[in-house]
């Protein structure tokens, strides 16, 4: 997964009339791979959540459509959001690299490494 420049991300998201000078170099925080990964997952989840909310608000009849017998979209999507949150969290946990600020493993005693 190639990293991307967060300032490009902002530039894509914000409307054009905000002058360039307003958002310059992103803070050092974006150099951190874990943070970038987290943000990526955040946007993915937000998109699915937003879709859910918008469907219920503006097309509630879709939420009544039965996926399989008895299980309608509202219930299925709701369960799905819950499960998806956990899956993303797991993927994030596995995908994160150890932090620089973590104390490294305790140095082995000289006698142990034979």
């Amino acid at each position, binding site marked *: 997964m190639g990293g991307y420049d967060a300032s490009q991300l902002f530039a894509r998201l914000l409307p054009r009339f905000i002058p360039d000078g307003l958002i*310059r170099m992103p803070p050092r925080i974006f150099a951190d791979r874990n943070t970038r990964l*987290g943000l990526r997952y955040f946007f993915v989840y937000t998109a699915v*959540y937003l879709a859910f909310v918008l469907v219920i608000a*503006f097309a*509630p009849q879709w939420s009544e459509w039965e996926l399989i017998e*008895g*299980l309608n979209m*509202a219930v299925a999507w709701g369960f799905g959001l*819950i499960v998806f949150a956990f899956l993303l*969290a797991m993927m994030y946990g596995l995908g994160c690299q150890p932090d620089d600020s973590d104390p490294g493993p305790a140095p082995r005693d000289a006698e142990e490494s034979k």
Partner: protein
Amino acid sequence: MTYEPSLIAVVVFFVFVGITLALSFYLGGRAKSSSGYFAAHGQIPWFVNGVAFAGDYLSAASFLGICGMIAFYGYDGFLYSIGYLAGWIVALFVIAEPMKRLGKFTFADALNANYQSRGIQLVAGVSTLAVSLFYLIPQMVGAGVLVRPLLGFDHWVGVVMVGAVVILIVVTAGMVSTTWVQFLKGALLVLFSAVLTLLILQRGFSEHVGTEAYPFINLRLIDPDPEELEEELERKGYRVVTRGSAWAERPYLWLATADGTTSLVRMIETADGLLLHGAQWITDTADGRQSINGVETGQSALDAGKVAELEPVGHIASLPSGEATGPVGPLSFFRILSRSELILWEREFVEEGDQAVTTVYYPKLISGAQALRPGEHPKFAGIRKEGFWPKLNFLSLMFALFCGTASLPHILIRYYTVKDAAAARKSTIVGIATIGFFYVLTLYMGLGAMTSGALDVTNNNMAAPLLARSINEWLFAAISAIAFTTVLGTVSGLILASAGAISHDILKNYARVEMTDHQQVRVAKLASVAIGMIAIVLGILFEKMNVSYLVGWAFSVAASANLPALVMLLFWKRTTKQGIIAGVLVGMISSLAWILLSADTFTEVYAVTRPALLETLIPFSQPGIVTIPLSFLTLVAVSLATQRKL
């Protein structure tokens, strides 16, 4: 319905509380320094902290409020589950990592890490206090609601009990014991909820369930001739009586039977005719007397051997197969429910002559499929209306729930109890798994309660414990005690966050009061007692308010005040301290003002007519969709205006 205290419930309850206190005292010796008191030495194992997240987060609102809302209205309560859980995504993916790097003990420290500004300390401390207090109120109300039927005590007794126990726990041991209390509570809550769900599935559906199901009048008439209706009823043994003009235009009938009992039935139109189903009523006369379902309350009723009480409700009107289903699976649960017809209950008031007012609890027939779709609850009904504005309330709420979790001070403070960022991440993942699993169960429990025949028609907060009682008394005792410990755990966390705000943020950092570590701990304990007492008073005053509504309040304020400042601080280099102060202040004040001036507050709290001007200014009750962006914009604008010239 009268709640008789169950001896088992009382014993189990006190055993639980006793163990909790014992744990607290045992661990109390360890937390003597302020770092120990506030952040449990940063040494709590991540798995424990993760389940403690769940224990902290799953408050009275989650367990009692959501299940109750689902039990009475169907799917809509589940929207809260989804929104609450989704907020954890914001917490984990946006906030968790950077936060751990920054702060020391409290949310204000995190905000202030780069700026060393006393203004920030003050404003963040005040915001923490405000949110914690608003979140405390529903918990205390929940405690009173729980204890009254369980132990037979009045509402205020439950509130005082919770307040006293929590103050004791917090003062003796600080974060360590609250973390273990919450770990215990979280694990037990999820475990017993899972057991309850399994038993619900095991019991299956039938038209006559539960040990307490009351046999309401339930007559189905196919294509009845209105002229012949009275004769038809006579044939079945019911004589139609009249009772005043107030009832003339309403879809009710008063029926008398040969033994002298009077019943009220509601006329419900069905696809092929008419359903006459029993309703319940409470009449209050001008001279202060009250009768329930025709029986006058007080000594005369007891003398006559009758009981004046409302009957438990909640059942299936008809099943697809017409007969009891036996055990069902988690998917066929929904299939059978969606093909059934259910009886849900609503309330209306009828003013009769002589200034008597009758409160009627009447049944309505609803298809299972309808109960399983969003939009049945009055506060969400806007989504089924035309136009954009009615939907704003719903959108605003879902937005506030999404943003609110990451902004809650008593959740944030828990990030500091693990030793590093990796552990913070892992504990959040465990938290999400536990909480998510629980929320899946809430849908089953709520729907199970809806069809259990044991609901209290006046109080939906009791739905989950009453469901348990209808299945098994031991389970009821356990779940009630756990629900109570639920409140204990959440209240401890909130009081701790508030005490931290007062002693650490406001007194030490802002007011620069000189204190040794030891003194700071003592001040925090005093603050805990003070806040605990305020919480007790508020919990008694707000007895009548809906628990979920109050929690939504706290979420909106938290999301408006705290989240914009946190996010911009972490991700925008140009944030200045003035920007943060302005953002937090504007967010907090605007959301508070919006709520205090909203239509819902006028109806439920002030009980006076709302000025028309407010209707134009504040057309919907949930502030999130306005105040959260407002706070962001304020922060950006003020930051840009106060950029330091390099």
